[in-house]
């Protein structure tokens, strides 16, 4: 078991770090203050292939492994949580399901432009009445001749309105299973601009404020029959498997936020002087940093292990759940401690740590709350 990265991965990390420092970091504060979607940065990343890192070259991607993709989200998130999630949601939730479940035609039509950077992707599962209880879906899709007709709404959708291609989960019927009536759920590919598909509220959020979080509204929205993704009735499984991959991306985002906060804090405590010496010389500071660094290191290993599992295993739900659960909680803890160690300045928006703390909170919630992750992990233990 080798814990060192090879030269290729080192170079990839250098690439992501340079890009993050030069292109992303200078805009992070402004993106947060003005709640603006970082379109220029996204355009640059699209040109460099960052939006299709783990998609094979034959479908317009860069042909790298999940680990390389994970490092990209990590490095971006170190300087800007918003930019990290744009890439993560697009890649894991928008593009990956088409790669895993799409027909050859669907891959050519939708996956290629997503992977090569022409188009942005998103994923719509959550509804006002269906968060953790995803089965509480109410959005319906009814087959009418050669078209599916969608009615309903989705909320809290990342990359909403900015994205061109959406993976939408909807109820396609009621079926009987072991004497009980349950919903038949399917997955669809819906393009922005389709008549009947509109956008509602843009959410005002605590953190990742530059991320476009929108309500999606479907009113007799008609899409071609061929836009069914995967088999009819398999939509829930597709959504869950997609989320497994997404959780690795979010775990990377959380890891990045924690690392960014830790680095900023180490710099700060060396500079800040009180009582005639730098606060880095006080044992409390030192011990806090030691705890933070150790937790970040542990989170790192879980995240990279989950990325490796995605590369080598068919099923990686538990690895993904553990990584996301731990990294998110570490991110929240480390960013909060970072603010504390900055003292008064930690509360001031000119310093990055307060933004990192606000950004970190959502990692414990979206793409499966920490409670859901615990359900997944314990479920596998008690099979």
């Amino acid at each position, binding site marked *: 078991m080798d814990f060192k990265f090879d030269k290729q991965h080192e170079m990839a990390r250098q*690439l992501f770090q*340079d890009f993050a420092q030069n292109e992303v970091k200078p805009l992070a504060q402004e993106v947060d203050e003005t709640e603006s979607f970082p379109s220029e940065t996204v355009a640059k990343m699209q040109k460099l292939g960052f939006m299709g890192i783990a998609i094979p070259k034959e479908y317009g991607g860069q042909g790298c492994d999940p680990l390389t993709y994970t490092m990209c989200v990590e490095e971006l998130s170190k300087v800007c949580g918003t930019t990290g999630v744009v890439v993560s949601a697009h890649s894991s939730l928008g593009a990956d399901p088409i790669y895993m479940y799409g027909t050859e035609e669907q891959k050519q039509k939708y996956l290629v432009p997503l992977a090569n950077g022409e188009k942005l992707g998103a994923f719509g599962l959550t509804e006002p009445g269906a968060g953790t209880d995803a089965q509480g879906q109410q959005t319906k899709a009814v087959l009418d001749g050669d078209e599916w007709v969608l009615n309903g709404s989705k909320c809290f959708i990342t990359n909403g309105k900015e994205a061109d291609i959406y993976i939408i989960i909807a109820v396609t019927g009621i079926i009987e299973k072991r004497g009980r009536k349950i919903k038949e759920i399917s997955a669809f590919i819906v393009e922005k601009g389709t008549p009947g598909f509109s956008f509602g509220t843009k959410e005002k959020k605590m953190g990742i404020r530059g991320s476009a979080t929108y309500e999606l509204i479907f009113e007799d929205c008609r899409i071609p029959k061929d836009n069914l993704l995967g088999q009819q009735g398999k939509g829930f499984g597709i959504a869950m498997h997609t989320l497994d991959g997404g959780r690795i991306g979010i775990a990377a985002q959380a890891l990045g936020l924690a690392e960014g906060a830790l680095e900023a804090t180490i710099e700060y405590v060396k500079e800040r002087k009180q009582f005639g010496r730098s606060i880095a010389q006080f044992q409390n500071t030192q011990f806090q940093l030691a705890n933070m660094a150790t937790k970040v290191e542990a989170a790192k290993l879980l995240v990279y292990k989950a990325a490796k599992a995605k590369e080598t295993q068919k099923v990686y739900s538990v690895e993904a759940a553990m990584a996301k659960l731990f990294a998110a909680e570490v991110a929240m803890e480390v960013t909060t401690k970072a603010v504390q160690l900055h003292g008064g300045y930690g509360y001031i928006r000119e310093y990055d740590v307060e933004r990192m703390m606000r950004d970190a909170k959502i990692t414990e919630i979206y793409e499966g709350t920490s409670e859901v992750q615990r359900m997944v992990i314990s479920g596998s233990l008690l099979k």
Partner: protein
Amino acid sequence: MKIVVCIKQVPDTKGGVVFNPDGTLNRGAMLTIMNPDDKAGLEAALRIKDETGAEVTVLTMGLPKAEEVLREAMAMGADNGILVTDRVLGGADTWATSTTIAGALRNIDYDLIITGRQAIDGDTAQVGPQIAEHLDLPVISYAQNIKIEGNSVIVERQYEDRYHVIKAQMPCLVTALSELNEPRYMTPGGINEAFEKEVTVWGRADLKDVDDANLGLKGSPTKIAKASDKVRKGAGEVVTLDPAEAAAYIVDKFKEKHVI
């Protein structure tokens, strides 16, 4: 069209210098980068490749570790990488270095050779023009813009207070300024491709038409008599005062030193 770009791996002096406890430079501890002027030259070559489909080869002379800059160049889009490395080539001044690189270039088919104007460690700006001399090629230094027109290059050649627009027939050599352009990033896929390719490694034996008397430390006409760490002007007084006090402090010092 075939372009060869000569690049150098250099310690990153911009990030700050690392010293050993005895005051000497700790090169091993410093990050290495592709020399900025060279990177701009590479970017210029890649832009020509984008427009005309030219083939871009990168060449470097250095320690085995220098292969890293070749990989970086290939990850940016260069087609081939050549590493010239050999114990006997070490310790070379610009004469011996240019002789070595010219010896390597004689094995290659090229229309245009691009080098950086100067490296941030040596800062001599000599190797480019000297390579041109050894190969009997026209040289245009200090390029702030490069265009291809048929069989010629059109270059904006920078001087202190003006620039010349120069036309030269290929084959020729151009030295690039880092102001020439904004070099592109590597791509994640490009990195993988770079490592899938073979880097050609050449030693002394592969150099064409060169004399051992002109290589390495022994073959360098300039010799180091002595080297020491710069005794820098030391730090003076540093104060943190409010603006009015700070201004008054300076005014007093100026009066003291008869500046005013």
